[in-house]
């Protein structure tokens, strides 16, 4: 493609940008462990290999526990206790003595345990299967002589994997590193966390042929992974990266005060947050509040900051569902951070690509068109009621707004409002301070967008990720459908303009909280559609502000 290329172009892989940024460093390969290349030895050798791997896993976990925040440490301590327990590995050692290779013996022993947990009656125990899977793979990886991710990545490292589990993401220090996934999705939980924390990440790269330690340039702004095999390339990329690194602080260090377009029109920029802990490094003055606080992680993290192990109130326990007090304290943290600015909390939006063991429908054939968001909440009123109560109590203390996801028909909003009124009655009877906050809907289902006037809603926030996939009939999970699942497609933009218009006629505030709002290339089109409130990842606030500053409306 380039006529000035004086040497062969370095091998380049094109994927989808999932979280912007650039890094340059050695590749750390974590391939899906489909059996190791290790040959099986005699039982004594296999026994020794498993003992070494168990000790290595225990040491790695102990190191992780020591370096983790309280929430992550609790998850890891459970695995540490398991790996140190001879009862866990005894069946594997027996199988080895009977002639099995170490890795197969270990996997079989753990798979039996995992099956036992998965078959448990109580949700809580079923959810623990994931911890055992994590541990199984950690030890199996060591048996195969593979690097255990989540231990130590060298500075600037690019972690290459097929996909990455949230727990693994959370147990690794990513600062200054990047993530390159051969599969994966830009709307996965990990991608959201990566965006919030400013970790460069590319997904959908396809098969990448590199060796551990090869130097690569990960350009997650454009979705490109380049292998720097030649010394000349290495120098060139190192220089390119140095430029990016100098620029990086400017991206994070954003201006404060109102964001104005070139015409002087005010645009509110709020932030999306998945976990209150993300906010510790974000100065509140760079934004106008929290436009989307997700609550899925709060419900899905066993042992997370007092969340999870306490069980669900009134649900018979299990599934790591946060109780009312735990939720209330999380909402209070958001309010405290926002310092008087509004905080829009989205009620539990599980299902689709966000499963919660024991709550969502397992193995749903077409999960994005299935039981998710408010549909699940209304199906589990005992769990939803707890969240509503916690939100009403938080609303007595600050500017809480409640946003309901995946609303399709007006009756869903009516049912939510009935539950809100009932919860207010309960709280009043119990003498607990509370307030009924504004209750709004997330608009992501085309049916709701088209007849928005039929809905009883206090505000509207456009969920452009789902809206796009539903309008375009293109799964947001598929890397192959990247071009189709385009939030800037004229059809999507037309529907967004319709939503803004319908909301405007009723003086219902409207905003957008999908990823489109954080993309400077799409911001002008969203402003053209009439939007003046954008809620974006914290790391995107700076670039969105600049896109707003550069915007001049066609009418002006």
């Amino acid at each position: 493609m380039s006529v000035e290329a004086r040497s062969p172009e370095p091998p380049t892989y094109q994927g989808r940008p999932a979280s912007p940024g650039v890094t340059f460093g050695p590749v750390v390969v974590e391939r899906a462990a489909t059996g190791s290349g290790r040959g099986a030895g005699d039982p004594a050798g296999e026994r020794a290999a498993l003992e070494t791997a168990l000790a290595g896993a225990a040491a790695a976990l102990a190191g992780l526990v020591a370096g983790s925040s309280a929430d992550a440490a609790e998850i890891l301590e459970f695995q540490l206790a398991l790996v140190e327990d001879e009862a866990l590995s005894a069946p594997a050692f027996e199988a080895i003595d009977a002639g099995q290779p170490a890795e197969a013996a270990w996997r079989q022993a753990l798979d039996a345990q995992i099956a036992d947990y998965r078959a448990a009656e109580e949700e809580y125990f079923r959810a623990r299967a994931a911890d055992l899977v994590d541990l199984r793979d950690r030890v199996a990886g060591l048996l195969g002589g593979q690097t255990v991710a989540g231990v130590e990545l060298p500075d600037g490292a690019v972690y290459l994997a097929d996909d990455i589990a949230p727990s693994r993401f959370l147990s690794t220090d990513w600062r200054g590193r990047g993530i390159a996934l051969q599969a994966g999705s830009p709307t996965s939980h990990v991608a959201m966390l990566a965006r919030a924390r400013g970790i460069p990440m590319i997904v959908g790269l396809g098969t990448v042929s590199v060796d551990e330690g090869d130097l690569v340039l990960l350009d997650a702004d454009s979705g490109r992974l380049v292998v720097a095999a030649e010394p000349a390339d290495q120098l060139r990329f190192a220089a390119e990266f140095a430029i990016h690194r100098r620029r990086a602080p400017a991206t994070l260090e954003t201006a404060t005060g109102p964001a104005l377009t070139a015409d002087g029109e005010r645009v509110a920029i709020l932030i999306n947050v998945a976990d209150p802990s993300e906010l510790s490094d974000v100065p509140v003055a760079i934004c106008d509040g929290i436009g989307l606080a997700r609550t899925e992680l709060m419900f899905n993290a066993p042992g997370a900051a007092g969340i999870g192990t306490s069980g669900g109130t009134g649900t018979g326990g299990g599934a790591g569902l946060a109780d009312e007090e735990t939720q209330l304290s999380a909402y209070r943290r958001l309010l405290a951070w926002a310092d008087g600015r509004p905080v829009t909390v989205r009620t539990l939006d599980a299902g689709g690509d966000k499963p919660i063991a024991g709550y969502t429908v397992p193995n749903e054939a077409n999960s994005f068109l299935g039981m998710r968001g408010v549909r699940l909440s209304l199906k589990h009123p005992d769990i939803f009621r707890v969240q509503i109560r916690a939100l009403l109590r938080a609303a007595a203390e600050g500017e809480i707004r409640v946003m309901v996801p995946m609303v399709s028909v007006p009756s869903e909003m009516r049912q939510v409002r009935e539950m809100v009124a009932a919860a207010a009655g309960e709280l009043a009877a119990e003498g607990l301070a509370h307030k009924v906050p504004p209750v709004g809907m997330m608009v992501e289902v085309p049916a709701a967008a088209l007849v928005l006037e039929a809905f009883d809603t206090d505000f509207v926030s456009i969920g452009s990720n789902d809206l796009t996939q539903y309008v375009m009939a293109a799964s947001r999970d598929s890397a192959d459908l990247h071009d189709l699942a385009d939030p800037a497609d004229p059809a999507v933009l037309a529907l967004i303009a319709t939503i803004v218009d319908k909301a405007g006629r009723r003086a219902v505030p409207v905003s957008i909280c999908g990823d489109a709002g954080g993309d400077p290339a799409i911001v002008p089109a969203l402003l053209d559609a009439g939007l003046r409130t954008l809620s974006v990842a914290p790391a995107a606030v700076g670039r969105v502000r600049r896109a707003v500053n550069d915007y001049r409306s066609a009418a002006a």
Partner: protein
Amino acid sequence: MSTPPTLPATASVLLAHEVGLHARPSVKLTKLAKTFSSRIEFASDADGPWIDAKSIVKVMAVKVPKDTVVHFRAAGADADAAVAALVQLVEADFEDATV
């Protein structure tokens, strides 16, 4: 496992932890048990089965729900102290920071 006759030190205590004996409490319980040299056993029923209180795999496998009376028994040099400490841990709802 071979069953010893009766173990000298025994005690029972009501487990009130909100979700029963799950991962975090089990980690604390087995960690504490391991600090004693005595053989310590645990059961959710006075008639057994009795399982090794130092094994998290076995303790978790009992899947003890909330509001169960759990039983400890121990044999060895520090058996009394072990049983007392474990009972105290359960009574304190596993909040004991000294573990």
